[in-house]
Every structure is written in C-alpha cells, then in structure tokens.
C-alpha cells in the first residue's frame, strides 16, 4: 500500500476498531454463495443480519453463519421489519441470545410506501435497549435534533438515511447529513439510499465515518463487481474528505501557467 493507506485510518464504535468504512447488509442476494462472495469482495468487516423464525420443515437448510462466519465478520443484528418499539426490543433480545453480541442496529420503521424511520418508536426502543445493556447503533431520520438526542441518550452510532430504504437514490439531503456529522461526537454512518459507487463516495466526502450498503450490491447485475466498486467508492470518498477539496469558484481558472507563452 502507498502512504495514503486506509489501514492507518480506522474508525471505532463501541470499543471496536474497523479498517473498512463499508458496512454491508446480507439480505436480498439470490443465494448464500453469492452473499459470501460479494461480502468478501466488499472488504467489509461488519455485516448486518436479520433475526427470523427457523423453518421447522427444513431445519438442516444451510444457514447464513455457514457462509458468512461470525468469527470473521462482526455481526450487527438489525430489527428490519419491526414497526413498533416492542417488536424491535424483543427481536434484539433474541439476537443477543442467539449470538451473544450486545452491539445491535435498531430500526423502527413507519408504514409503506416511505418506510421512513418512526422516530417516536425509535426513541422508545433505544431507551429500553440502552437500559438493558445493549450498544445501540441507530437508524434515524436526517434530523440533526433527533440525531443529537439519540447520541445524548447513549446510542453508540447514529445512522441517518440518505434516501428511502432500497430506493438507490443517493444522498437526498446532504446539508442535513453534514449538520448531523458536524454536531456528533459518536460515529455517523449513512444508511439506506446508496445506489452506486458515486453515492457511497459522496456520503464519505460529506465526512461520515462509514456507509452501510445492501440493495445496491445485492441488486446489481453483478453483485461481486459492485461490492468491489463500493469498496473503491468508500475509500475514494474517505481519502477525498481527508485531503480537503479545493474551493469552488464560479469562473474558469487556467491550470497551466500564463507566463512564458510563445508569441
């Protein structure tokens, strides 16, 4: 690696250190081998997982853990599909028992078609989970006041949406994402809405600590190639943020010296 290695630029959450600033979901893939290959290509060290009933009619079916090892990747159990605080808390208590991990991703969603974060339910669930000893990374609206309140409650990371879940529209409200980042003392991850590598790079250029991507990789024509593209996008965006971009000017400015021209 060169002198700009991302390896010397780890981010930390809940006492753990991660070199990769790309967090990936494990849902929506056509099969488990593709899931495993795409996650490998993404370079991610943290993956989100869902908690669901075991299929009693096929208890020996291959399990996610057989393909995406919890010994290699930090599992981040989520509450996807939960529409009330009670469901979310119950789901994560089961996740903690299944895996033994306190670090979780809370999301309480409002109804379709927006699936926008239900912030009243999110606050209620976050309070219950923190009281119960969980380390809560929290999916939330792109609202700087709500984000700050979640941080003050004790959430270990704030995860505002870039755009509606699964929409692939990219960061729709960069001003608010930037305000959340500038006000936060805990890591901020853009979660939901990334559609392609430029969206991930853009989110990182805003200064967020990491990006969470699922659909954009899983629903690409070639998920493994897109996983690699997301890795590159996140790294490029992070390096650009660290480098500090040039000032924008609304006039041309020649790149070559203007003296010494032949006449």
């Amino acid at each position, binding site marked *: 690696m060169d002198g700009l290695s991302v390896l010397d630029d780890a981010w930390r959450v809940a006492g753990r250190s991660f070199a990769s600033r790309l967090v990936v979901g494990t*849902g929506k893939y056509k099969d488990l081998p593709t899931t495993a290959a795409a996650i490998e290509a993404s370079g991610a060290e943290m993956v989100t997982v869902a908690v669901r009933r075991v299929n009693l009619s096929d208890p020996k079916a291959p399990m996610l853990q057989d393909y995406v090892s919890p010994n290699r990747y930090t599992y981040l159990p989520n509450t996807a599909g939960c529409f009330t605080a009670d469901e979310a808390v119950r789901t994560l208590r089961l*996740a903690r028992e299944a895996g033994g991990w306190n670090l979780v991703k809370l999301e309480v969603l409002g109804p379709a078609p927006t699936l926008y974060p239900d912030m009243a339910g999110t606050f209620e669930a976050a309070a219950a989970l923190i009281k119960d000893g969980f380390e809560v990374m929290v999916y939330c609206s792109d609202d700087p006041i709500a984000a700050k309140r979640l941080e003050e409650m004790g959430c270990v990371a704030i995860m505002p949406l870039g755009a509606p879940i699964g929409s692939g529209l990219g960061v729709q409200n960069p001003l608010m994402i930037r305000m959340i980042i500038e006000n936060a003392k805990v890591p901020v991850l853009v979660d939901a809405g990334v559609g392609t590598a430029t969206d991930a790079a853009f989110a990182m250029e805003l200064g967020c600590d990491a990006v969470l991507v699922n659909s954009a990789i899983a629903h690409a024509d070639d998920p493994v190639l897109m996983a690699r593209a997301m890795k590159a996008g996140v790294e490029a965006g992070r390096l650009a943020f660290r480098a500090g971009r040039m000032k924008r000017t609304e006039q041309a400015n020649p790149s070559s010296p203007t003296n010494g021209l032949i006449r």
Partner: protein
Amino acid sequence: MGTDNRPMNVVTETLSLTVNGEARKFAGPLTVAGLAQALGLDTRKVAVELNREIVPRSTYAQVPLRGGDILEIVHFIGGG
C-alpha cells in the same frame, strides 16, 4: 409459576405446543433441549423464547415444557 403436580413416574404424555406459530404435538415430558433435538435443530445457532421470555441456552436441559406453551425459535438470516 404454579407447583408442578405431575407424578414422577409418568413416562409419556402428549404435549400440545405452539412453535413458531404452528400447533404441534410432542411426546412428553420434554425440556427445551429435548424439543430442539426432536425438531433437529442445532442449538448453537438459534435462540428460544418461551411464553415471551428468553430461555438462556445454558438452561435448555433444565427448562420443562408444559401443554399450551408458546415458543419462538429464531436464527440469523440475511438482512440489511
């Protein structure tokens, strides 16, 4: 929790349980560990909730099941 008045010498009974939303019958007496075995589950990869209370994995062999119990048995799957 009431006192368990079942005589010690009863060898079998039929237990009606609701597991993951399905009504199922099992030969009792049965513990959570016995149920997992009967269902062919690898207990290292699941979590069990009995009547909305988490059952710690270390206690599966000691927790008896009673007719009418409602269980949820979950595991990790792909998700975003």
